[in-house]
């Protein structure tokens, strides 16, 4: 089926808005992680591990939107 104009707009908007939100979230997370590492350098290992786990959860939100936009595009 031919993708209509609004469909293409929706596909683009979905990943764009998701990237906006997750970007803000990742900024908060990494910023706070670095701040706590600077305050307590001996806890760097634990903070880094937990930061990556949190990053995975945040990143998944953007990736859902990516999958949705792929689905919308290929409709």
């Amino acid at each position, binding site marked *: 089926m031919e993708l209509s104009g609004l469909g293409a707009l929706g596909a683009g908007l979905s990943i764009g808005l998701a990237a906006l939100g997750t970007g803000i979230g990742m900024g908060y997370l990494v910023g706070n992680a670095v701040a706590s590492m600077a305050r307590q350098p001996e806890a760097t290992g634990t903070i880094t591990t937990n930061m990556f*786990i949190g990053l*995975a959860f945040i990143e998944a939100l953007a990736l859902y939107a990516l999958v949705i936009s792929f689905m919308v595009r*290929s409709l």
Partner: protein
Amino acid sequence: MEHAALQNIVDLGPYFSINKAVIWMWVAAFLAFITIYMAGKKEMVPGRYQSFVELLLTLIRQKMVLDTMGHAGLPYFPLIASLFFFVFFCNIVGVFPLGPLGHTATSDINVTATLAVLVLVIVVVTGVRKKGIYGYFVKGFIPHGVPWYVIPLIYPVEIISLLAKHFALAVRLFANMLAGHQVLLVFTGGAVALFAKGIGWKLLGVLPFLGVVGMLLFEIFVALIQSFIFAILTSLYIGDSLREHH
């Protein structure tokens, strides 16, 4: 741009056919096996390679297993390490630009969903073995201290949250791999289209080419990080059903 459908190389019906993804999964499993096997010589003084693999395995044992599950999780160390190496090699063999031959098995939702279902089964079986059927399915899903009239509301939510965690595990790996390859494809397409034009456009085509180089390096990093995250989330979920909370 279309994700090409996988052609069956050996046709054995809808479920057991051998295609490119299966071949590359075999390659990844073989590479993971070789990586570990070569380091298992049990020498008194480990060589450079053996100490590297031992360092890696110690890291997995300490950071992923002991930090998240405690000593009760040590029986799951081989599972976590196998998952890590398998997913890592599945990701990394797709980074090599082999044209139509290359394929990332983990950029297929079927592969990652199978791994996630495997993890879900292990998590549920572990929980049932640890706490019993009543303890896991009834007490384990109701947070401590909720009033009785909230239970009918909270029980389905907890079940959905368990399934959603594992759904997210599958989609995260799949979407990361697929997205990375789509970005590479877009940059490559841009570079090829610009190089086919006049001299001014060729100069501009250097930019997407540099993008390809940068994204390839980033893909190697993503392959490592995603396999790490897959393994550590698996151990977190197993640790959740091992722990006697409340």
